[in-house]
């Protein structure tokens, strides 16, 4: 059952990804990206990471992508314009893809897999276990990230402020 769900949503995620780069209307690209985000959230759920599943939907589909949509709706339904492909794009992108898969292969060498047992599934991915992780083991990086976000928010407000003089 889980494998069928995985195949359906995995394919949907890939199709969405292809849609993002092939559609010429920006709004279709954005909606394809939403499909990618939602499919990924289902994949998280299959890994029994319930909290990450919900946060993926709330943050990415519910907030980030809506801002994308906001900008496109304000700019109007214009087609994508501007310069087409860069001259070296094909060669360069193939190189990057090769490097990426090489890296992926190298990382997966010697990885041990095991079936999750029952206690794992009761604890893993719940709100409680993630909260304990965030506020004990990873407290320092977590707080640093929040300060970084705060700085970014203040910077954005400062930059978008009109000059009063």
């Amino acid at each position: 059952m889980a494998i069928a769900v995985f195949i359906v949503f995995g394919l949907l995620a890939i199709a969405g990804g292809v849609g993002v780069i092939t559609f010429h209307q920006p709004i279709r690209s954005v909606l394809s990206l939403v499909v990618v985000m939602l499919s990924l959230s289902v994949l998280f759920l299959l890994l029994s990471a319930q909290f990450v599943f919900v946060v993926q939907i709330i943050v990415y589909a519910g907030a980030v992508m809506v801002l994308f949509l906001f900008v496109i709706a304000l700019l109007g339904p214009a087609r994508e314009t501007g310069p087409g492909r860069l001259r070296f794009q094909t060669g360069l992108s193939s190189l990057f893809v090769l490097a990426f898969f090489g890296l992926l292969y190298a990382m997966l060498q010697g990885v041990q897999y095991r079936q999750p047992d029952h206690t794992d599934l009761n604890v893993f991915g719940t709100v409680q276990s993630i909260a304990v992780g965030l506020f004990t083991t990873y407290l320092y990086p977590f707080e640093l990230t929040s300060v970084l976000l705060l700085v970014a928010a203040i910077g954005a407000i400062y930059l978008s402020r009109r000059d009063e003089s």
Partner: protein
Amino acid sequence: MSDLYKDPIGHWVVVVLAMAVVLFVLLTATAYTVWFERVALGHIQRRPGPNRVGPWGLMQLAADGIKLAFKESFVPAKTDRVIYVIAPTIAVAAAFLAWAVIPIGLWYNVQYWIADVNVGVLLIFAVSSLNVYAIVLGGYASNNKYSLLGGLRSAAQLISYEMAMGLSLVPTFMIVGSLRLRDIVDYTVHWGPYTGPIPLILLTPIGFLIYMIAAVAETNRTPFDLPEAEQELIGGFLTEYSGLKFVMYYLAEYVNVITASALATLLFFGGWYLWVVPPVLAFFLKVVFFVFVYIWLRGTFPRLRYDMLMRLGWKVLLPLAIVNVIVTGVIIVLVQG
């Protein structure tokens, strides 16, 4: 019941049946919510309201439904037809999905829910945050300036109030220690001679107040119905929708009202517990009461101006919600020693 769950096919039969029942009950409830709203608004405005079709006008919604179903479903020129059709579908899907995790008390100690997930309340937020797409895409695809403005207003409004709404519930989660709706309803206290479930509003009155205000804004109801402000935007994102697509938006709005009322009941008013009243009846009465509060607000308050809406959301409700979280945290630490 539990034996049936162990059998894989029996499990599917039960879940599919339950989904069909929930769908049927919700559709019926939506129709009668609209009827209830029109009658209640009528009485608030000292006029009779619908009273011609059937006894007390009870068949009015059936008549309206048939009329809307046979209307021409007009699609404006030069629109993105795919997105124009998808938008209302998203609204309906998002509205019904929330009911997958809402537990319903059927009888004393008998409750039913389609899915009992660890992150129940958050899942409802996630699903309702998809509602933004329905409105923004509907406004965008209608190829109409009023629709677009309505859609954009709505996006800003929904995102702003989602923050306050989410934070308003954090004290409840802190007290109960769970995001599971069933655990929140079953939260038990030991106060002197009394041991049993209590309505959580006694512990988080401010959280309830913020939740109620934000929920009205989230469902686009008066006094926060700026996305479809008739006097300035004709009908906002709804302007270019007719026939069954209009019905889908309408349906989604009322299902969302019922969902928000059910959530208020479960989170703050003890769900299906009400003295000796049978749980189904208790749950029903509480939800009807909150639906009435929605209608009451609509009959009482004028619409807010846009800047007032944003100021209320960001400068009043959000700070209040954050303070509420901090104060609740301090009290919990003090009480637990």
